[in-house]
């Protein structure tokens, strides 16, 4: 059943049905990546405004390529070089961009809720490319697509999430997404990085101190990047983090034999993940990246490819 989306601000408000629809709509875009000619004219003449107020290489390249492959143009706002340094407010910055008539905004910002704030004030679709520690919906969708492709179904999986959960929007979006499919969660990391508030989300999750225990029976292991800048917060030396929490082949063996290893990237090889695991047969990191392109193309297509405004008359006038 076709679903309608105006914005993509987070996973939390979506239903399982809507998520399945988004994953299904990503499949044709997975195929396009295998064509000799990957450029479509579907969004020709449309412009995607990329407003990244936090550093990002991969997500920005992914959205930029997704737009280009659909035939769209991009406007590229990068925080370092922007007028924000000159004291312009977020709203003014986005209104300036909007005055150049993009057809949607893809936004990443360090403040939770910033994309929603903007969505309420502009008249075009807004896609959240990461807002503070709140949500990163396209990451969760590409993770789900990767797992569904490999496992066939998302329902009832045991998901272990390792690392700095507290500061991770990837963890939050993934918990919302897999939670809607009845999955169970084991969250593991240094105590300071395992917030108790997650229990309020209402999904079956447990916080686990030892990584071996968290991996027991896991179908999916999501490894989060250790931001070395943050290691001083629980006063944990790097060597100790590696000793206690690194995902090694021995530890991974505690999970199910067909367990998948995901990492949102960029990976710190030898820190949160052993290179043997990163490069091993259970690792899905490169598929995640390819699927990210497909998911973002699908979203741009759904949000920009048709105009919900005159939808009803259009439906009546259909040939």
């Amino acid at each position, binding site marked *: 059943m076709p679903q309608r989306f105006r914005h993509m601000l987070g996973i939390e408000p979506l239903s399982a049905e809507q998520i399945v629809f988004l994953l299904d709509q990503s*499949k*044709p875009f997975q*195929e396009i990546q295998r*064509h000799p*000619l990957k450029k479509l*004219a579907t969004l020709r003449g449309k412009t995607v405004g990329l407003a990244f107020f936090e550093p990002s290489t991969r997500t920005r390249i992914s959205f930029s390529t997704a737009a280009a492959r659909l035939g769209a143009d991009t406007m590229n706002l990068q925080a370092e070089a922007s007028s924000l340094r000159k004291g312009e407010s977020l709203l003014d910055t986005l209104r300036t961009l909007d005055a150049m008539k993009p057809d949607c905004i893809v936004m990443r910002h360090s403040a939770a809720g910033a994309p929603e704030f903007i969505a309420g004030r502009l008249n075009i679709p807004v896609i959240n490319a990461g807002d503070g520690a709140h949500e990163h919906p396209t990451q969760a969708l590409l993770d789900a697509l990767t797992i569904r492709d490999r496992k066939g179904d998302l329902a009832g999986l045991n998901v272990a999430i390792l690392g700095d959960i507290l500061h991770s929007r990837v963890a939050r979006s993934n918990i919302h997404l897999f939670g809607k499919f009845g999955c169970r969660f084991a969250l593991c990391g240094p105590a300071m990085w395992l917030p108790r508030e997650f229990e309020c989300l209402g999904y079956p999750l447990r916080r686990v101190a030892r990584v071996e225990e968290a991996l027991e029976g896991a179908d999916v292991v999501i490894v989060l990047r250790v931001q070395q800048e943050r290691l001083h917060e629980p006063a944990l030396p790097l060597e100790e983090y590696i000793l206690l929490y690194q995902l090694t082949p021995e530890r991974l063996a505690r999970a199910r034999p067909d367990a998948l290893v995901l990492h949102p990237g960029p990976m710190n090889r030898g820190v949160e993940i052993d290179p043997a695991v990163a490069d091993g047969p259970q690792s899905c990191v490169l598929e995640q990246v390819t699927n990210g392109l497909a998911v973002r193309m699908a979203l741009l297509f759904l949000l920009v490819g048709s105009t*919900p405004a*005159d939808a009803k008359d*259009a439906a*009546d006038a259909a040939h």
Partner: protein
Amino acid sequence: MRVVEKQQLMSATEIDRTVQRLAHEIVEKSGGTANLALIGIRRRGVPLARRVAQAMRGIDGVEVPVGTLDITLYRDDLSTVAPQPVLQSSDIAFPVDDKDLILIDDVLYTGRTIRAAMNGLFDLGRPRSVRLCVLIDRGHRELPIEAVFVGRHVQTSDTEIIEVRLNEVDHEERVMLVERVS
């Protein structure tokens, strides 16, 4: 949009006879099936292409490959056709380079679907030739597109719609002429 049924144009038997005849025509005008491939355009071109391939098995005894093509991404009217068009996958498992392709669809009208289909095909490679086979040609072309293999030519007006109903999609089998009423 409300429609009123005006007339049945083809019965199940007539559809079948026409498909058989089209399969024969394609084989005859291709000098055999060696380099042929059929591409069914979603949605109803797909079962039609499969039926034509099945008929060809009977004639030449050869397996002609069948691919399916979803043209949603190649349309020129995306923002007017549906609130949010639903994508299906295309599935063309063989290389299109140097193939003699037969595009198959249920109704040929303005020609825009076929234009979109050709864009899709040429993104995949360089076919040797592309010819078009349709069950019904209802006229009113808006682009220079023609079908070489036609089941039936039907004169229609702008308010009329040809509904091809096939078992695989619609769970009934006939071709109807209907009229839009507001």
